[in-house]
């Protein structure tokens, strides 16, 4: 399965995601921000980092690059698209997932391992977890506080994918830290599954995110 790993100037989790996809048995390939044709890929992952220095807002400038047109095509082709951290912020800026990830409530960059609850298993990325399963993955962001005006709608439509369990470190609405689009194929998560994909990293709870892509269909 050929999986595109998107690179912007300022991406810094691209190689980690590439490695995690290989561990999961996938065939990853880097894709630069100016590439427009992505339909040869079976899935896309937008890794974390600080694309374009987070200027204007995290993800704002990446959201108008040519590769986004390609990603919109991939979405139309009903293939899985995962955005992690800055990738999640980009998907929200594009409007491919509802809401926005904005400044943390405590105005700090938070970097630590957190407990999370998998609240929906209908996305390819969470299909290998049990609904309600508690997992551990790290977060590393200053702009991760999830906010949406459509909280009832996304709850009713099963678009809430991950929630902080116990502590809500960034002040997200209803402790939400992962959401998907209506189809469930486009998913944006602030925690880093690639940083929890092998036991040498202290946890391999995140590997199923990538195995779920490989097992899709």
């Amino acid at each position: 399965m050929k999986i595109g790993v998107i690179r912007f100037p300022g991406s810094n989790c691209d190689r980690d995601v590439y490695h995690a996809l290989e561990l999961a048995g996938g065939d990853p390939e880097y894709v630069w921000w100016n590439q427009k044709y992505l339909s040869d890929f079976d899935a896309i992952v937008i890794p974390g980092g600080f694309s374009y220095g987070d200027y204007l807002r995290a993800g704002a400038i990446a959201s108008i690059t040519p590769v986004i047109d390609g990603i919109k095509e991939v979405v139309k082709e009903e293939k899985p698209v995962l955005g992690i951290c800055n990738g999640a912020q980009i998907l929200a800026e594009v409007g491919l997932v509802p809401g926005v990830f904005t400044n943390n409530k405590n105005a700090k960059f938070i970097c630590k391992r957190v407990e999370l609850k998998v609240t929906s298993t209908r996305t390819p990325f969470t299909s290998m977890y049990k609904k309600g399963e508690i997992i551990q993955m790290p977060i590393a962001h200053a702009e991760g506080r999830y906010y949406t005006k459509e909280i009832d709608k996304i709850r009713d439509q099963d678009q809430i994918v991950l929630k902080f369990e116990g502590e809500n470190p960034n002040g997200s609405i209803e402790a939400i830290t992962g959401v998907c689009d209506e189809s469930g194929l486009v998913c944006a998560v602030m925690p880093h599954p690639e940083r929890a994909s092998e036991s040498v990293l202290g946890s391999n709870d995140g590997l199923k995110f990538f195995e779920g892509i490989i097992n899709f269909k």
Partner: protein
Amino acid sequence: MKYEAEVKISLKKGMLNPEASTIQRALALLGYEVEGTDTIEIIKFTIDEESEKIAREEVDDMCQRLLCNPVIHDYEIEIHPQ
């Protein structure tokens, strides 16, 4: 004709503003007890258009497509002939 454009971007009413509350707490450390601290981002540039109306429409487009996020932001546009 050239116009000076200024876009003022603020958070929608009721939105949490961690930057403003941090500033307010820092002011309190210096002994300034202020309330209602807010921050506004200003983006300025010059634009060459046939009329002020067209310039304003163009800048409004920019706000909706890039400069603001409609989920959390309100914006004001000021246009003046250069």
